[in-house]
């Protein structure tokens, strides 16, 4: 498992306006500065430039997955596939043990002198349990790591943000970033091709 940097693991799980901040000593009223783009290619380049300019805490918002964008903002997280692997092993074990326990231990039933542990007959259900648990793990872990469902998020305060699910592309540099300074960051976003830049309230 590779993680791009220390923050990326929890990049959107714990910093985006969760309960941690409500009780914390510092509450920055500004969530970040957001730039709006019309072209995913320009956004991709802008994100790369922001990274090389030293920004670390940012996120991009696009109506469809843009390949290479997660890489560009320095995000890398392979916990979902690993969790699925573990979930699949768990499913296989559960399916097998269920049949072993019921057919051999708890309810041994002699049918025509055949062995109690007639393992080839146990493969289909073991297989189905593997798939079922893997699939639930994939979805559950993906949603949990993404912090969903969460109806309110600070990013929704961004200007024009309803178009992030339609035809516009956004790059938000968050106020948590050590290098964040509202005016400079806004100027930076304009310089890398943002058509409009605005502040996002928390």
């Amino acid at each position: 498992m590779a993680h791009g940097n220390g923050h990326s693991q929890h990049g959107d799980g714990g910093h985006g306006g969760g309960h941690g901040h409500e009780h914390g000593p510092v509450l920055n009223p500004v969530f970040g500065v957001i730039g709006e783009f019309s072209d995913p290619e320009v956004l991709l380049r802008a994100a790369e430039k922001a990274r090389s300019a030293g920004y670390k805490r940012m996120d991009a918002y696009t109506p469809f997955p843009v390949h290479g964008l997660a890489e560009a903002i320095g995000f890398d997280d392979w916990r979902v596939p690993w969790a699925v692997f573990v979930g699949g092993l768990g499913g296989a074990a559960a399916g097998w043990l269920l049949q072993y326990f019921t057919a051999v231990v708890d309810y041994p039933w002699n049918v025509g002198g055949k062995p109690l542990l007639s393992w080839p007959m146990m493969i289909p259900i073991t297989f189905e349990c593997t798939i079922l648990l893997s699939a639930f793990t994939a979805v559950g872990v993906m949603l949990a790591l993404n912090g969903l469902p969460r109806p309110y998020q600070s990013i929704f305060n961004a200007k024009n943000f309803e178009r992030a699910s339609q035809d516009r592309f956004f790059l938000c540099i968050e106020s948590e970033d050590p290098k964040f300074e509202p005016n400079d960051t806004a100027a930076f976003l304009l310089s890398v091709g943002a058509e409009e830049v605005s502040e996002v309230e928390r």
Partner: protein
Amino acid sequence: MATTKPTSSPRGAPPAAAPPPVPADAIRTRPPQQNFLEGRHNYDTITEVIGKVVLSPRPPIQWILITFLAFGLVNVLLMTITWLVLNGIGIWGNNQPVGWGFDIINFVWWIGIGHAGTLISAILLLMQQSWRNSINRFAEAMTIFAVICAGLFPLLHTGRPWVAYWMFPYPNIMGMWPQFRSPLMWDVFAVSTYALVSIIFWFIGLIPDLATLRDRAKWPVAKALYGIAGMGWTGSAKHWFRYEQAYNVLAGLSAPLVLSVHTIVSFDFAVGIVPGWHTTIFPPYFVAGAVFAGFAMVMTFGIPLRKLYGLKDFITDTHLDWMAKITLATGLIVFYGYILELFYGWYSGNVYELAVVNNRLFGPYAWAYYALLFCNGFMPQIFWSRKARYNTFWLLTVSMAVNVGMWLERFVIIPVSLHRDYLPSSWGMYSPTVFDWSMFIGTMGLFTFLMFLFIKFLPMINIFEMKELLYRYTHRPRNGHQVEDGSAITVEAQRPAEVGAAAKGAH
């Protein structure tokens, strides 16, 4: 997702491999099999054309008529089920020697229809076939609704559906456990896993589109409902990253799952010793038949829908052409299965197997066998003609024939194998009762009703994947990224006037 295709080794592809830029008017010169998105579209018109079906306040009159007609049939189904639960399954035509009648025929038929949805969404995704993008959503919906219809039959065939939970393993005061060595028990696990995985796969695919509808809906109630269902999706790059991981994993899981489901359904027969059932060809033959039936049903629904809602830019003639080719290919596999069944009967040298073959060809139900050969063997051969694959009439005619043919196939396998037992004294004829028919027609109504509700309330074409397809068709190679081919579709996000024109032109 499909976009990962050109960049499976993004930094490694040589820049020299990038194709030369194609002029914008090149749409006519491209080979037709590349047109999976037609017309002039940008990101906004895609959202507009697909979202409009859901968000426009008044559905077309055809939608209202069909939905009400289907709702009438749903009531027929409900009345049949009520009468069935009150009286028991004696109201059906199955009895000795034919213990499996319409209930099992329809179960297998419906399950098979569902399989195309998973094939399109999972296997074609893994094979990086971008043509799946516009048909996967409603094919997945078909899967779920078909599984619902399928599940009703064995559930009610148990005779006491209110204790159907006995089939699940739970510690109980009877001190018993289910018999896990039985294919019927495997069926319980396979079909319920299939239903659950199909539902989550479909729902995960819907989340970004629900967010799009949330942001586009004007009516506050719709906005709130789509907002809740969309789970607060923002389109964050981090979220997309994990989303694609999970979606690809789900596809990877669904592909073997769908093969296992119909394999296990075929074990219901093949593990038994009934002559005509006890053959090793059953699993692949059933799976091919399922895909065959499923694609026919996708076309049966898809062709009228794309016309009704003006979606020909997304479900293009090329899509229909390719679906017809898959129907032809799987049809040939199925036909090979029919030939092998005859061969097995002859090669076994077993008098009972030979009797089944003889009975199929010349027995009292021979008409069903010949009708089956006509529908599944002869009719798909029309698709060898390119003209027929581009002709709506032939596409629909052959699809309907295949729908009927696949039902007849199960009829030939199930009652025709059962109705002449080993001893002539236990021979009998099977005739379905009015309740068999009302139940069957009722599930067709339920399927249509659910499909039409789905079309009205959820986007029937995957919006974000269509945008992704557009992005792939239009973006220029950079850093050694290689695009699939040149750009034939113009993106003009900056010109609102043309956006409106394109949206109108697409109707």
